[in-house]
């Protein structure tokens, strides 16, 4: 069974090429496969949709450019939804490099929905220290942010004028790719009982199911796929939905590789081969 051995010893670079092509081709020749909406994303959408016009939400966009692929389209989609429902957004970030991204997400969404700075939203910008800021807002928002990103005192901004802590907010939305999400659960939700919706990278998504079940989270938007679902819910077509064909194809390639790799190993073992090198891992008990 030499062909099996040859297959198992295939140069990794061929696999890399395959993946690269899988990501690029659907972008060049899109198929526009349908995007199904999953319950947790719908729950997040419904929670925001149920807010009466004039409600205020705190939106913290805690990510840096390295993972913006997943969270930036999500930010735009959520913001557009809020603006459409005339929900007032107080936006901030806990990452210094998130400032530019946050501002861009807001201006993109505001332009699309005709929202106006200070009337429909406020942009507070960056403040350092996760726990410090979250606890600080619970105590006194102005202690953390005396002025907004542009230097306007919060009292001069209609959106923030009557907001002093979580108590005057109808919801906290956190879009993050790090442990910031855990701290929002621990502090904004746990300590101050703010209703919380989280959007996160797909990697993190499965970890938050216990919090959904315990209603500590009202909804969960996971990764670029979650963003694509949200885009579909608000009926827009952004970067997340554009990437979904490539997503499907590369997933198929990875699944194919797992199956072929295992099948080849199986055949080579049955024919008495060594299985193409040592096992590279062992399960520890």
């Amino acid at each position, binding site marked *: 069974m030499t062909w099996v051995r040859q297959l198992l010893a295939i140069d990794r670079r061929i696999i890399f090429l395959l993946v690269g092509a899988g990501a690029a081709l659907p972008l060049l020749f899109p198929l526009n496969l349908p995007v199904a909406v999953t319950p947790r994303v719908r729950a997040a959408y419904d929670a925001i949709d149920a807010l009466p016009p004039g409600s205020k939400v705190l939106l913290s966009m805690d990510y840096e450019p390295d993972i913006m692929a997943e969270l930036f389209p999500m930010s735009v989609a959520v913001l557009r939804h809020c603006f459409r429902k005339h929900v007032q957004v107080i936006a901030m970030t806990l990452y210094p490099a998130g400032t530019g991204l946050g501002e861009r997400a807001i201006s993109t969404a505001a332009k699309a929905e005709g929202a106006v700075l200070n009337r429909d939203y406020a942009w507070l910008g960056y403040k350092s220290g996760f726990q410090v800021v979250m606890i600080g807002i619970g105590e006194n928002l102005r202690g953390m942010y005396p002025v907004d990103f542009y230097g306007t005192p919060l009292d001069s901004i209609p959106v923030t004028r009557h907001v002093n802590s979580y108590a005057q907010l109808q919801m906290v939305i956190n879009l993050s790719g790090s442990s910031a999400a855990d701290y929002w659960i621990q502090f904004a939700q746990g300590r101050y009982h703010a209703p919380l919706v989280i959007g996160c990278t797909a990697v993190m998504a499965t970890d938050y199911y216990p919090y959904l079940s*315990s209603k500590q989270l009202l909804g969960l938007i996971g990764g670029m796929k979650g963003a694509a679902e949200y885009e579909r819910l608000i009926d827009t077509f952004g970067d997340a939905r554009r990437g979904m064909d490539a*997503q499907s194809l590369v997933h198929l390639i990875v699944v194919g590789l797992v199956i072929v790799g295992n099948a080849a190993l199986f055949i080579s073992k049955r024919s008495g081969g060594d299985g193409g090198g040592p096992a590279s891992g062992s399960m520890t008990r």
Partner: protein
Amino acid sequence: MTLQTWIAAFLTLCVFSFLYKDNPFYRFAEHLFVGAAAGYLLAVQWQNVLIPNVWTPLLHDHKLVVLIPLALGLMMLARAWDKGAGIARWSLAFYVGIYSGVAIPGYMQAQIFAQLADAAKPFAPGWGAVNSALVLVGLLTVLAYFFFSAPHKGVHGAGARVGIYFLMVAFGASFGYTVMARVSLLIARVQFLLRDWLHVLPGP
């Protein structure tokens, strides 16, 4: 704008070249990245922490209480010399003490009690009860797996075995989702190269 795109595209390709093998381009990108990241973080701390939390309150508002964290910070710097280890220990002691103190009630509330309360809520009616029961079984058996003070034998051993199956399904779920996340990031990078750099894709 174009200069920026070209540099970014060049650096993107430098890193991708690592897939072929380690090479001077990757090494250059790696060393540039390390220096740039360290410099950026230092500058950010300077502008966002040292200026607003130390400099301004001390020199403009004359808040002397700021001298305490300043002293603790300077004591930390003493670590740069071998002899300063004893001095730096005080800053570490404070820093570690604070974060331990925050962790105790934080974890107890959000991670333990909240989860216990939800696990203890009555079963859902109808078919939901089957799922509720499965969740309970999974929870108890995984806890059994992580029970260290008895060997995995008898009932406890059997429970731990079931627990590991639940763990594996959970790992599989995380795994699938992680693949999804990484693929998304690759797609965005390819989008950047094809759209912003080579202009073969239409704009957003």
